[in-house]
């Protein structure tokens, strides 16, 4: 959540973002987080997290159009603050759709095309993770990837959907 506070600071265009909690945690000293006293006189002290602006955000979307407008179904997790905080936004998407399909329900578009630098159509691009509502987590693939043995990473990369495509 402190990470998101940093992303929000960047998204809001301010140098830091107040965040609830953190009191009593060694993470504050470790990261050099400062506390400020409420300037409006409540007496409360609040931690402030410095802005974090990623050079590039890459998000995976359900649908994208030729302008980069990207629709995400299901929980957006951190896609919203991430795309607003980053200097550049790249999108991968399950499929390309005509713009009027997105315009029919614009509230489902998570990031508008003017913010997106490039997009690629990558079916099953969230593998071995899930993509609501198209496919679920591939637990056997995750477990195979976690094995601490020679060749596990290569086998994982070789079994990715994009590695198995012919085109």
């Amino acid at each position, binding site marked *: 959540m402190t990470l998101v506070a940093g992303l929000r600071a960047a998204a809001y265009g301010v140098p830091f973002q107040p965040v609830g909690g953190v009191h009593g945690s060694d993470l504050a000293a470790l990261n050099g987080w400062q506390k400020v006293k409420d300037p409006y006189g409540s007496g409360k002290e609040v931690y402030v997290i410095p802005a974090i602006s990623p050079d590039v955000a890459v998000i995976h979307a359900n649908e994208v159009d030729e302008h980069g407008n990207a629709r995400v179904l299901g*929980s957006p997790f951190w896609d919203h603050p991430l795309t607003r905080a980053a200097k550049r936004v790249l999108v991968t998407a399950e499929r390309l759709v005509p713009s009027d399909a997105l315009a029919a329900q614009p509230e489902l578009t998570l990031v508008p095309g003017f913010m997106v630098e490039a997009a690629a159509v990558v079916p099953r691009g969230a593998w071995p993770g*899930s993509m609501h509502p198209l496919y679920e987590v591939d637990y056997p693939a995750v477990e195979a990837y976690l094995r601490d043995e020679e060749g596990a990473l290569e086998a994982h990369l070789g079994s990715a959907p994009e590695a198995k495509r012919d085109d």
Partner: protein
Amino acid sequence: MTNDWTPFSHIVVNLARQIRPGEIAFSGVNSTLAMLACLLAKRAYDFHFTYLNVAGGVEPVPRTIPHSSSDPALVAGSPAIFGNEDFYDLCARGGLDLVFLGCAQVDGEGRTNVSVIGEWKNPKVRLPGGGGAAVMMPTAKRVVTWRTEHSTRTLVEKLDFVTAAGNLQTVVTPIAVFQKRAGRLALEFWNPQVALDEVARRTGFRFDASGARPAAPISTRERAALESLDPQGEFAAAIRP
């Protein structure tokens, strides 16, 4: 009624028993046992509470029980998506009554370590991190944690690192339930399959055991709910005594 607790049932059922009527309860990432506890409470108890989870689910009715507590299967049947930004903000403004937060170590004051074993700069084990615990533990009204290993290296007098401190109220293990009283964890219940002095021997922090009682047996409905959530015993098999 015999006390036939298993390590698995002792943790899940005693976690579920912390949920109170009308509460808004939340389970996060890497928290399969807490997820099962919330789903068990929905099936075994008659009172209403609101279950939120890290997948964005609000009162979900999952068709299958996922291995991961952040699986989007936990949004199935949910009438709303209440995603990461929303539930963290709800917690920060005091709107989460009960939050289940995992830990690697917990100390006698109910502070937790999810960051590192050993020194930060020279770690023996680098842990995955708090995932918001430092924000949630001081701001949630009540926090419950659990450990599948009850030992002097998990329940410690002194943490290697304080990831989160604040409103931790309850610690549940395969053999014990601790509740915070006057700023210290005190023994509330122990699993009657072990002796009380075994709990003391396997706990690294000093604790008050006055008033401690054997845990009440698992009820018929709790047992039925647990079996419905884990019909093949897969989750139970993952918890070793």
